[in-house]
């Protein structure tokens, strides 16, 4: 589904990702771990198409297409979802309006007519239950004044509403209490299927007890320095990253 080949990414002429390779197949869940500031979020931004992050080399192929040739909104409409490490506040725009606009733009891209109101409302209700948020939250402006945990749940809520093919979740587990963590994991697990793939970026092995990954990668200094199965996460938890740093 996603093939990243020899990728280089720079921010303001500083190279952050250097020669990164990664392949994610449909049906798989990958976890990316690694010390702070090693480029995990940068990788996510580059895949999502944030133009502050310049791809200076390599390629990203998504479902057989050159992903780098698409705008961020096209990538989203092609089924790519990014759960933000720091979700953004948009004053004055209600969650409901925001998500309906997003759904309809994606549908338009796919040649579908706007979603019917009853179907939309039913979907809202279902997913609000799924992630345990209520209408008080969805009637408010996007992320405005949401608590840290509410913002993260809201990312999962949006993911559930948009039904992506590939979801990248950047530290969606950070700052969550244990119940919220289960809620998030539950949301992600519901998305798991033969057709979909998920990349979770996390610092904690704990999340991976709930979302069991097929692969765990360690990102260090802009490259994947080690890959393994779910046991690797346990090993990292025990030993830290020092043993990988050369």
């Amino acid at each position: 589904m996603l093939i990243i080949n020899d990728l280089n990414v720079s921010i303001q002429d500083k190279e952050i990702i250097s020669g990164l390779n990664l392949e994610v197949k449909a049906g798989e869940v990958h976890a990316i771990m690694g010390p702070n500031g090693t480029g995990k979020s940068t990788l996510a931004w580059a895949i999502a198409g944030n133009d502050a992050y310049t791809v200076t080399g390599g390629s990203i192929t998504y479902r057989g297409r050159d992903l780098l040739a698409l705008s961020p909104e096209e990538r989203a409409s092609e089924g790519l979802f990014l759960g933000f490490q720091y979700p953004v506040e948009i004053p004055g725009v209600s969650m409901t309006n925001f998500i309906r606009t997003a759904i309809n733009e994606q549908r338009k891209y796919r040649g579908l007519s706007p979603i019917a109101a009853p179907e939309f409302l039913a979907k809202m209700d279902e997913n609000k239950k799924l992630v345990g948020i209520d209408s008080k939250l969805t009637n408010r402006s996007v992320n405005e004044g949401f608590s840290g945990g509410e913002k993260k749940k809201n990312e999962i809520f949006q993911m559930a509403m948009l039904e992506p093919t590939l979801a990248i979740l950047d530290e969606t587990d950070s700052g969550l209490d244990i119940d919220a963590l289960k809620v998030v994991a539950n949301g992600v697990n519901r998305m798991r299927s033969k057709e979909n793939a998920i990349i979770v970026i996390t610092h904690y092995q704990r999340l991976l007890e709930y979302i069991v990954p097929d692969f765990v990668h360690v990102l260090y200094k802009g490259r994947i320095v080690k890959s393994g199965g779910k046991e690797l996460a346990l090993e990292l938890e025990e030993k830290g990253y020092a043993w990988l740093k050369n």
Partner: protein
Amino acid sequence: MENDQNNLLDHITQSEYKYGFVTDIEMETAPKGLNEDVIRFISARKKEPEFLLEMRLKAYHDWLRMSEPRWAHLSYQPVDYQDIYYYAAPKKKQELQSLEEVDPELLKTFEKLGISLEEQKRLTGVAVDAVFDSVSVKTTFSEILEKLGIIFCSFSEAVQRHPDLVRQYIGSVVPPNDNFFAALNTAVFSDGSFCYIPKGVRCPIELSTYFRINAAKTGQFERTLIIADEGSYVSYMEGCTAPMRDENQLHAAVVEIIAMKDAAVKYSTVQNWYPGDKEGRGGIYNFVTKRGMCRGSHSRISWTQVETGSAITWKYPSVILMGDHSTGEFYSVAVTNHHQQADTGTKMIHIGSNTRSTIVSKGISAGKSNNSYRGLVKIIKRAQNARNYSQCDSLLLGDQCGAHTFPYINVENKSAIVEHEATTSKISDDQLFYCRQRGISIENAIGLIVNGYAKEVLRHLPMEFAVEAQKFLSISLEGSVG
């Protein structure tokens, strides 16, 4: 074909005439430039009573002694007032045969607004055939209004049919020599709207110039007078929400509103005139004087404006709060993009006791534009317990535009409570990227954010205006980012 159309037009103009919406068609044009003769000519063509001619001449002589205001935060080429036709017979616009002859940019905008084909033709002056419908709609409306004793007609018609009302109220809120542009308007005004709501009548529909044929060609010097008698209510929507091209560069309108005891007037504007091209060529200069007078106690005047068009906007819809317990409101969204310039705001003059005013101004600047809020809150000595709340927000897109706030507060009575809040914010790249990552295009993301920002003002617009205003906000900011 040609002939059919002429017949059709005749038919329509006659229907209009029959229902009293339009005065007879003149064929003459006054020579370019402004002098006493031209003013006499205008007045004579319009068969005006003596008092109006006198008022025009007096305003003209005042105007000669005045100079163009320079205090606004605007810069533009000086206007050559001798290079303007001050009276042109209501010219038939060059009629186009099909929409294919219309500027494709304009059509694109129509499409985005979801304006029907027939309506598009009407607005662009393509040979009309849908007007029959509108005519019947209009008739129904005028019958409803007539039954209630509401007068709603063109200004010229009011001069002929209700000269006493006109004489009593014209210039009573905006004196002929109020300012340079008001004096010019008073001297040469062409036509406009007149509206009188009798005692105790609540006007059941939103009054809109849309329902008056010829409104599309109101011209450069429009004059509007609205009188709400005791205990009456009217909601008035100005102008046409469609993007109109106009060959006249200078517009100087005057609007006067009078609200008697317990009366309420809600005046809404969506101004979407040609803003000029991306390089700042062309575009309308819009110098407007709008003022309301809350004459009676417990009266209320509310201005809501969405200003997205014009190259230059100079307007300060104001309220003089004479009556005790009267209320003035000003809700404004002004958008400037490319090279547009807007200097707009309000004046709230508190004279009566227990008067209240509210000001909510939202400026949105993009491109290389300049957007200024200029407001005065004045509370005179005898205005006991006056209150004002002002909120002036500016939203910037990009870093080449300017936003300025000039709030003037003048309080002479210690019991007054005046609150002023101001904020400046930007649409951040993070916000745009967040929207785009969800599949929302840059343009729609800006539209979404801007409409969210302006929501507080938009909710004061009548429904049918609000929907269009939202679309305008998005459209006028197109190409401002990315």
